[in-house]
């Protein structure tokens, strides 16, 4: 009869291992979802700041129409694809970032604009929002890396396959301009 107990013990151990692996996968997937929500919050914050910025710059540099329009267009496009997947969204947001940094480079040439209190406050907000986008993307990608590793390595890949845990997409910047200058400079 002793072998029955051995079998029972093995079954119990395997069951425990399965449950803990499953819970680990769920926890990591939830972290990915939370991180994604955080990116979303910061990107929306940037959409809200841009009209203000465009208005303020327009008051001092109205003949930079092309640059201003490019930013507005990129923002509207980004807002339209707001429900798309991480890969596509990252591309559009990268374009918005580079349009923004062009606008802020243009603003350099206007000393009156740079002395404007409203512009200075917007500058701190926009710098910080760019940073927050960067950091939330960083946290998201770290979370995705950990989650994807878990779905691919043995033995948790078996559990992942059984319960349909799929690998998640990274949020990667594809725009060359943004990769070169991830920070917005106002100086």
């Amino acid at each position, binding site marked *: 009869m002793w072998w029955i107990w051995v079998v029972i013990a093995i079954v119990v151990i395997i069951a425990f291992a399965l449950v803990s692996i499953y819970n680990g996968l769920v926890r990591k997937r939830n972290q990915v979802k939370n991180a994604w929500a955080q990116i979303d919050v910061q990107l929306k914050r940037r959409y809200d700041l841009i009209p203000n910025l465009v208005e303020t710059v327009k008051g001092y540099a109205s003949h930079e129409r092309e640059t201003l329009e490019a930013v507005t267009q990129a923002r509207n496009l980004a807002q339209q694809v707001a429900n798309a997947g991480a890969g596509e969204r990252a591309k559009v947001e990268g374009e918005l970032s580079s349009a923004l940094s062009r606008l802020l480079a243009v603003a350099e040439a206007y000393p009156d604009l740079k002395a404007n209190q409203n512009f200075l406050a917007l500058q701190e907000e926009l710098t*910080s929002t760019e*940073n927050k986008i960067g950091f939330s993307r960083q946290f998201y990608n770290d979370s995705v890396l950990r989650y994807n590793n878990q779905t691919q390595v043995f033995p948790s890949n078996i559990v992942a396959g059984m319960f349909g845990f799929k690998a998640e997409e990274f949020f990667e910047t594809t725009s060359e301009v943004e990769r070169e200058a991830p920070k917005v400079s106002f*100086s």
Partner: protein
Amino acid sequence: MWEQIRANRIRSGFIVVFMGALLVFVGFALGLYFFGSAEAGALIAIVVWAIMMLVAFSQGDNILLSLGKAHKIKKEDHPRLHNIVEEMTIASGLPKMPDIYIIDDPAPNAFATGRKPDKAAVAVTSGLLQKLNRDELQGVIAHELGHIGNRDTMLMAIGSIMLGTIVILAYYGSRVMFFSGGNRRSSSSGGSGGAILLIVALVLLILAPIAARLLYFALSRKREYLADASSALYTRYPEGLASALEKISGSRTQLKAANNATAPMYIINPFRKKGMAASDLTSTHPPTSKRIQVLRSMSGASFGEYDAAFKQVAGKRGVVPASTMAAVAAMPLREASEEADKAADTEVKRAREVGDVLWRKNQYRTIDCQCGARLRVPPGIKASNVRCPRCGTVHQL
């Protein structure tokens, strides 16, 4: 992050268990001496510890903050600091942004407190805000949030209470022993056996607080390295923290609000002496020069790369738990942010900025006169108007 917390718990668990054992030993010694029963003494020691624990936790998380003239700030008080804390909260993935306090003290320092990550607070001194640029401040804040995320704040709170209990018991126990002399209640052990017992108990009472303090400091030093590693991971820019540590350690002013129990909470040891090789066992913090050296020789931002840099500098085994390193692969560093070396971001401007916050927090009223002078009116003033000392304009209050 989870792997790291778990590894931390195991390592720190050992040290806390050691301290707990010391506490019980002290109880044994006292009980044996006074009541002739070791168990009763140990029980009393544990009860004293539990009471101190309850008192500390029921007083809330603000003991540290109430000690040091700390002012809680909102976003509009100091937008840059608020934004940096928010950025680092995002980077570290903490569930909730900690409260922010500014301490009115010219010595640059910072600490984190709070039992749980969702009830945490960070405090920075006005001197720190004045000295550091954006990248450096970010490094320091990331280090403090690292303490919160790694559950160090809770651990150090438990450790410091245990240390306090051992010190108090041993101190009063040995006092009473000395002055009550032969008037022992215990009659079960007599003759030479009693004398040996007395000596053993006395030695234990003298050694226990020292041993407990060393353990507490060892615990603290390990946490500092790990928080440094977390800072590099969150900011992807170890140079920020390195240069902040350089500036902070170059300062000669001593923090007024610090004491022995709270010292491990600060980013840099508030009691350090100039020129002292602080690598010995009695320091709460690792030597700052070594911390800077490790940060500067990092080739990437991950824990694995911090560990490699540490081995290279110290030539010993690493400080980061192995299970943590496997989790995350190599991570590239970033460049210095451009606003950090901006000409407008000067020390004078930063000093004014934080000065304004503190005047406001102390309920001073600020009046900008048209001649360019700035008047600070203290709270509770009786007069209905003030005269500008420079141009003589009278301002209504």
